């Protein structure tokens, strides 16, 4: 008996970690490989069940250059002058960045290759966005997803930071505000979507007088591509700002006050204190926060599905939703192909963000 207990104790290292490893392995990693295989096949119905026929890269080709590429990548159009300007600026910025790296102190071939990859991929994405956002173009699901991610993150961070900065002041009732501001994060996204659908209704919703005053009384935002997108983005921002708020609040509360006091004694005004002391001190937390939120934001599906069902046409369809609709019509190969491209996009964004921005920011402190 004692030997058994002793053996069990010596196996502690394995007992602690194996369950978690096995669960993740079997339910995340293995299905990933199976999904890769499914993305290279086409589903059809055979005798008594279904058959997966291997078709190679057909599903990917269909999405990128084939009949679905307008849905996925968007409708090309000549970019507007602003579009050309943005593209030019992005290319110039990346060129300057690469040259600075080559000329800089620590130069490594791996680093250069990584930076070139990042620069080219981002330039391609900007090229896609600029082509499709032009007036006669139409963004595909990739473009829409990117719009959602970056616009939402920007507003969530700004609003969260503003609210956090206001809430750290010792004013009566700040506990109330802290609790209230936390609430939207707790609601199921489906519930948020339906609530916002109710609220944004231009005929029966509570803002009807506002719409009338703005002259939009008879219209419906659901008919307009950008109106629908804005509705989805508003819902997403409403729901996830608390996440940024609560973490930034905790970060701001934990910064040391000696520096701030010293700065005040030296005569710094409020803006200088914010820019030179507060911002650098929350920079590491901010980058981690943005990383977490960015990873989650790419997966957005509940809001576009429920609020607009993909929008007028496919205007608000995110990549996850696109994969879901393909699954609904039993095109599991295409669905898996989109899911994989979303995975590649998210991994690429996360890795480049971690390697290029976050390590730099962590080193600030």
């Amino acid at each position, binding site marked *: 008996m004692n030997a058994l207990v002793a053996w069990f*104790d010596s196996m502690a*290292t394995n*007992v*602690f*970690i194996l369950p*978690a*490893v096995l669960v*993740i*392995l*079997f*339910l*995340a*990693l*293995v299905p*990933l*490989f199976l*999904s890769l295989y499914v993305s290279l096949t086409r589903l059809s119905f055979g005798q008594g069940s279904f058959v997966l026929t291997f078709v190679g890269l057909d599903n990917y080709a269909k999405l990128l250059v084939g009949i679905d590429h307008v849905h996925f990548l968007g409708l090309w159009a000549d970019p507007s002058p602003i579009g050309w300007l943005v593209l030019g600026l992005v290319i110039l910025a990346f060129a300057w960045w690469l040259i600075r790296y080559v000329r800089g102190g620590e130069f490594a071939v791996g680093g250069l290759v990584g930076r070139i990859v990042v620069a080219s991929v981002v330039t391609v994405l900007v090229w896609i966005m600029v082509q499709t956002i032009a007036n006669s173009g139409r963004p595909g699901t990739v473009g829409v997803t990117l719009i959602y991610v970056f616009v939402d993150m920007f507003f969530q961070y700004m*609003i969260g930071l*503003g*609210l956090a900065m*206001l*809430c750290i*002041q010792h*004013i009566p009732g700040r506990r109330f*505000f802290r609790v*209230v*501001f936390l*609430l*939207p994060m*707790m*609601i*199921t*996204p489906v*519930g948020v979507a*339906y*609530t916002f659908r*109710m*609220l944004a209704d231009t005929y*029966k919703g*509570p*803002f009807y007088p506002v719409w009338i005053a703005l002259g939009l009384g008879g219209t419906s935002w659901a008919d307009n591509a950008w109106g629908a997108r804005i509705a989805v983005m508003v819902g997403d921002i409403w729901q996830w700002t608390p996440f940024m708020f609560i973490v930034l609040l*905790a970060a701001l509360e934990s910064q040391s*006050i000696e520096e701030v006091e010293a700065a*005040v004694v030296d005569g710094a005004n*409020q803006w200088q204190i914010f820019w030179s002391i507060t911002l650098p001190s929350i920079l590491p*937390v901010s980058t*981690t926060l943005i990383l*977490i939120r960015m990873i989650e934001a790419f997966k957005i599906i509940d809001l576009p599905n429920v609020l607009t069902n993909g929008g007028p046409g496919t205007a608000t369809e995110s990549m*996850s939703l696109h*994969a879901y609709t393909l*699954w609904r019509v039993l095109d599991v190969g295409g*669905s*898996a192909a*989109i*899911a994989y491209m*979303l*995975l590649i996009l*998210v991994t690429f964004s*996360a890795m480049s963000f971690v390697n290029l921005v976050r390590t730099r920011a*962590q080193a600030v402190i």
Partner: protein
Amino acid sequence: MTLFRPRYRSINTPAPLGMVLTYIILGIWAFVVLFPLYWLVVTSVKLPLDVNRGPVYIPFVDFQPSPHAWIYIFTDLRNDTVRPYINTVVVSLTSTALALTMGGAAAYALTRFTYRPKLGTILTFLACALLAFVALFFGVPWQLAVVAAIAVFILLLQTIAKRFKRSMGNNDIAFWMISQRILPPVAVVIPIYLIYQRLGLLDTWAALIITYVAANLPIVVWLMRDYFQTIPLELEECAAIDGASRYRTFWSIVLPLSLPGLVATFLFVLVFAWNEYLFALFLTGANSQTLPLTIAAQNATRGPQWWYMSVLILIMIIPVIAMAIILERYIARGLLVGAIKG
């Protein structure tokens, strides 16, 4: 004159003008947050006529409130409301408890023990697991597939796997676990659906519980790893000298000390499992349907039935909001530690 004074421990109220501005802005956002919730409550007591004829805001003034929606949901549809509710509660609590146990143990192990898994072992294990699943796909009964895979694994382990000497460390394991969060659910849900179908697990509690545990383990590991790193080793060494086993040390010493982190992680994971929609959509049927699906199902052929939907959304969010209010002070601390250490 400064509008806001920087934050002091002693003098930290802003100048009066700053205070007024602060309250205005905070009040605006509080209104933005609370108005949709108010609208939900109000809509749940409106008659269909009141909902459709235009916006009416205040009960008893603009319209007569009527509890018809609440009565319908709780009596006429009693079983169809209670069953998803019970499903949600059971699935969320069970999967959160399991995720915390497994994830906490794994996080503790990653901070205290040193692992050096060999790359060869990992790859052969992966290959054998894949083999087992493919066999499952093709209809082989799962008992046979598992036994065969284990046999092949042991065989390969003795021969080929020993060749690859390269091994990974604790940080690699932690990074791998946490990076599973990047996985979009749509990428893995199809194979999981097919596997559960072969195993006969579709439309059961077990399917959702296992899936939610797998989806939430990365968060648990991420957050708890940092908490465990803050617990000094000396305490555990004392316990070891006194003869406590590893399990005893973990259970009696480390866990109570990391209670704030545990509470924050518990709430976070519970909220995630409570609100989850995609996996529930794919993997459940009529028996194990959870509340988010019931809400989405109120979108009937005559248009969404806002009154019923409001009632359902309210009964779904009230427990979570109550928990959030009670446990609010833990959440910030828990999330912050994970964010700072990264």
